[in-house]
């Protein structure tokens, strides 16, 4: 006992204990890794295909003609050629088919073919797309070997960066993973340490309060960053998530994650202080996490929300974390470019820790 007491050693012992505990806690693993991964996998598979129009070919329609051949070549239209009339009618009503098409040879000469299209009010938008595809196609077929008299459109497309669904979804899921680990994890552990007198037993040792909070924070931040890295790696290699500057982008994302988790842990401290029993932690935590989950652009861009809702979205810290993450990952912004988002998160951090200091209870 002759050596002086070492606060760093105590802090690290706590961090190690807490990290071990977190990795064995099913809820931490589910919230940090499983949920975000499930969403990423779901959106990773459904996204990226682009738009497809489902068009039924009427039974008895001529199939060997330039119209059908051209439609198949567009890549936008999925033709179903062997459905029954009854089935087609049913599906048209439901909007499962966007339209019905039939082509017949003109026995009287020109034009060589008549193309009949039946749209459905159940799928007007796709119907309109089909309409313009058909117009374009008709024009091309009709003007084969003819010089245009007025104008010819010479359109080219530059090869831009392909923005996949995953590029939008992954940063959102990452943000949500950090939010739930920060809020639920912190709230539960401090509540249970307090309730089971674990903290009181700690106080009977020479450990400082700051070491307890710091040790817990190190463990949780470490776990959250490993989770974030895992999500980014799976997203990148399995679903082509864009990391514009490679490793530098990943590092920038981890810096943002750290800021995010620290802010969100502040909410967790507040919840652990407010909760009267273990069963009140989930509802209070949900009040904090659910609105952010829905309104912070986790799944949809907040621009898609009604105008009156957008100011609320723009007040939430997760909005800025998501925003900064997307800018860094997809647009290749550096941390200085997203200083505004970081600054707003820091303001939230200052505010929430001020509240946490008032509400947190040790015993």
């Amino acid at each position, binding site marked *: 006992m002759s050596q002086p007491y070492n606060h760093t050693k*105590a802090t690290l012992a706590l961090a190690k*204990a807490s990290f071990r505990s977190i990795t*064995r*806690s099913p809820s931490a693993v589910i919230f940090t890794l499983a949920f975000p991964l499930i969403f990423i996998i779901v959106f990773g598979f459904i996204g990226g295909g682009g738009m497809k129009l489902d068009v039924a070919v009427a039974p008895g329609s001529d199939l060997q003609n330039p119209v059908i051949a051209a439609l198949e070549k567009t890549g936008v239209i999925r033709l179903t050629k062997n459905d029954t009339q009854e089935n087609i009618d049913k599906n048209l009503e439901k909007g499962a088919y966007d339209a019905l098409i039939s082509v017949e040879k003109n026995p009287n000469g020109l034009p060589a073919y008549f193309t009949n299209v039946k749209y459905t009010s159940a799928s007007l938008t796709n119907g309109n797309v089909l309409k313009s595809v058909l117009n374009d196609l008709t024009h091309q077929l009709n003007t084969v070997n003819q010089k245009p008299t007025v104008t010819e459109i010479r359109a080219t497309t530059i090869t831009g960066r392909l923005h996949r669904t995953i590029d939008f979804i992954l940063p959102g899921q990452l943000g949500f993973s950090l939010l739930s680990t920060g809020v639920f994890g912190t709230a539960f552990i401090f509540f249970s340490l307090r309730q089971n007198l*674990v903290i*009181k*037993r700690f106080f009977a*040792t*020479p450990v400082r309060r700051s070491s307890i909070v710091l040790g817990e924070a190190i463990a949780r931040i470490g776990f959250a960053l490993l989770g974030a890295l895992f999500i980014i790696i799976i997203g990148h290699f399995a679903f082509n998530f864009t990391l514009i500057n490679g490793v530098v982008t990943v590092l920038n994302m981890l810096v943002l994650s750290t800021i995010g988790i620290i802010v969100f842990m502040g909410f967790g401290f507040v919840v652990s202080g407010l909760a009267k029993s273990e069963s009140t932690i989930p509802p209070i935590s949900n009040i904090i996490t659910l609105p952010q989950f829905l309104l912070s652009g986790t799944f949809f861009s907040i621009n898609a929300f009604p105008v009156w809702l957008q100011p609320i979205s723009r007040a939430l810290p997760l909005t800025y974390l998501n925003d900064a993450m997307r800018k860094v990952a997809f647009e290749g912004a550096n941390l200085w470019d997203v200083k505004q988002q970081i600054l707003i998160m820091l303001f939230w951090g200052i505010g929430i820790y001020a509240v946490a200091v008032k509400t947190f209870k040790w015993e």
Partner: protein
Amino acid sequence: MTNKRSIISVSNLVKHYGEFKAVQGLSFEVYENEIFGLLGPNGAGKTTTLEIIETLRDKTSGEVLVDGLNVDTDANAIKQIIGVQLQAAGYYPNLNLVELLDLFAGLYGVNVTPMEMLAKVNLQDKAKAKYKELSGGQKQRFSIATTLINSPKIVFLDEPTTGLDPQARRNLWDLISEIRNNGTTVVITTHYMDEAEQLCDRVAFVEAGKIIALDTPDQLIDNLIASGFERKKEVKAANLEDVFINLTGKEWRE
């Protein structure tokens, strides 16, 4: 008790919780290397007194010295030389016993081998078990192991045998005696008078926040007899607990 150096000295200790006066002017001394018992009914102020000495609770007034250190000014130095077992305390979730002992070694800033600590309380075969998977007696022995990590001068045990079966209780008495025999002072609270009589070198009776008697168990019994007290029923040479131990054996099962 040849060397009666005082290691804990409490004088005029008072603790109020708002209107409630939990401790009202307690004074006593604990001598080095003895087992000192604080006895009394629930709510008498035993735990409060203990927690004030352990520096876990502020006092309203009075003076408390632990090995010459003042609880007001040297709380951290006191924490380094005492071991504390709390009534009904839990441990960090999801960790096994070895990992918990590692954690406490870090908190006390000492290097210990967890298996050696577990050997002291005979829990080597539970090294990989979680605390909540232990039986009542094993839990108490583990708690005592955590109090010994920093090789303390004084160990505080708050109702360590409450809820244990007779075998586990006797086993714990042996462990506590062993700790004292290794040179550590033990302060213990209990509701069981047979336990206090067997285990404690001196006991203090606490009632409504005051000490109403303090002496060796022998002396207190002699005093009572001298006052003319007689048991209503003639005392037999054995009691029901002796029957229980005789029938079920001394070995301890868990």
